């Protein structure tokens, strides 16, 4: 009952936002007529780096085929949170996590959940472009090959498809076998996105993916997200209010390791419930 209500409201907002922000959301109708699915459900997440309590009782639902933006001041735990979803925190010593994260009804934090499988389903793009010091082609096929694909024809196909999805194909198709380090920063970041897409993930985690890029490269990648959201569930950390407002469907506001407020982006930005959220989005935050 409540959920239906929410859905209706959301639909209205969505239409409104399309008018206001002119978001290119193509087959929105087909998505919205179907019931909105929860892709990831985080419950009671507590996270410690040693004695530093970095996440405090965080609860968040991430919707399928939606872009969820995580905002908040520096050091509030956005990166820490996004890294819990693919268990990247395991590469940091002396960390502790409590709570559950269900991806399609399965708790990924359970010790017997296979990390390799998890990271195949949940891809990650980092703040700084981090291509491997290999050729463009090798970068893209790293994941598929790692997961056992050997057929050259298939690999070629994956390279082309992934680079096209990442809107990089036209720029690099004649130099696939040259070093990825020779690409510009924006191209490198799209290559990293292509590298992620090559293993056919369901979720994309992006930690400030455009913060190292110039405005034009940023716009290119933002456009890309709009196309990708039809196939993938995207979680993006951003410091730019404009970016969050432009591209995301839902937003969560973090402060000192807690989620202060989360919900539809348009609601959160136009009528925030918490005064701290309002302070932050209006830039009155100290």
């Amino acid at each position: 009952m409540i959920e239906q209500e929410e859905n209706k409201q959301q639909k209205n907002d969505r239409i409104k936002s399309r008018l206001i922000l002119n978001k290119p959301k193509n087959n929105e109708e087909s998505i919205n007529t179907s019931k909105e699915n929860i892709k990831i459900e985080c419950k009671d997440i507590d996270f410690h780096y040693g004695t530093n309590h970095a996440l405090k009782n965080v609860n968040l639902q991430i919707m399928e085929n939606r872009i969820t933006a995580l905002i908040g001041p520096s050091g509030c735990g956005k990166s820490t949170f996004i890294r819990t979803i693919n268990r990247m925190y395991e590469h940091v010593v002396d960390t502790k996590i409590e709570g559950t994260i269900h991806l399609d009804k399965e708790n990924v934090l359970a010790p017997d959940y296979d990390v390799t499988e998890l990271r195949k389903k949940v891809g990650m793009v980092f703040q700084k472009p981090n291509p491997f010091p290999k050729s463009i082609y090798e970068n893209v096929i790293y994941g598929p090959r790692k997961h056992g694909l050997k057929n050259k024809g298939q690999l070629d196909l994956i390279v082309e498809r992934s680079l096209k999805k990442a809107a990089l194909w036209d720029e690099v198709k004649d130099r696939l076998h040259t070093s990825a380090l020779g690409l510009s920063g924006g191209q490198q970041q799209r290559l990293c996105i292509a590298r992620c897409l090559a293993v056919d993930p369901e979720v994309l985690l992006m930690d400030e993916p455009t913060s190292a890029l110039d405005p034009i490269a940023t716009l290119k990648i933002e456009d890309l997200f709009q196309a990708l959201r039809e196939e993938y569930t995207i979680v993006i950390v951003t410091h730019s209010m404009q970016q969050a407002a432009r591209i995301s469907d839902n937003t969560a506001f973090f402060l000192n390791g807690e989620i202060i407020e989360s919900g539809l982006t348009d609601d959160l930005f136009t009528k925030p419930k918490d005064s701290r959220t309002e302070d932050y989005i209006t830039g009155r935050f100290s």
Partner: protein
Amino acid sequence: MNKKIKQKEFIIEKTLLLFAGITIITTIAIILTLFGESFLFFREIPIWDFLTGTTWAPTLKPRSFGVLPLLVGTLMVALFSSIISLPLGLGSAIYLSEYSNKKARKVIKPILELLAGIPSIVYGFFALTFITPIIKQILPQTEIFNVASASIAIGIMTLPMVASLCEDAMMAIPDSVRNGAYALGSTKMEVALKIILPSTATSIASAFVLAISRAIGETMIVAIAAGQSPMLNFNPLASIQTMTGFMVNLSLGDIQQGTIEYKTLFAVGAMLFMITLIMNLIAKGILHRNKVRY
């Protein structure tokens, strides 16, 4: 005021140039002596006989100047010491850069530095009095002086250099690259083998070449533990003589300037110089080719 600073700068610059000049002049002087005396040597002994002869007896009559036994001895030492230093050095580097935590690094790094700082004469006696008896216990036919023992000691001695050169190259790869691979589901071993090793291959190769070239030039250990018998043989348990071993042996006795023995010393020295020079050039060449920059 300005003039004074300029004068000062001028003096500093020229002084430093002089220092740099001294090393250049020394190098040139060494090369000139080496090749000058060698030239005199090859006026008496055809270079072809020198390079292809299989009997080395420069001080005994009938004299014979076939350098192959020395060359083979040297190459055997280089080969066997590499079997120790290259895989162990590379393995330690991978462990240090990819697996170890801070605590383990804190213990291992100083030990490696310590190994590198031990004088080679200590390694020589270590080979003779510790390694050789162990080998002898396992393989009783082993001679007192033998290639294997000296090679093991040289391998241990050059291991830290291989480890630290390789590790430097591996640590230069930013963690963000490793995280990218982990985020695609890679294990530590896959990151080490598929990302780190291929991207540092040139540095590793050049570290290897340098280690081999150090083994070729190593003198003390072979002089003490490998023996002084310039016989052409390929048995690692037997005594041999290396080029450096010969040189140190001969220069210990009193030899007269201008004699053939004296010139032989320089001919062998020049050959050694050429080999290590080529090895070092190869190492440099490898490094300069497609070096990855971040």
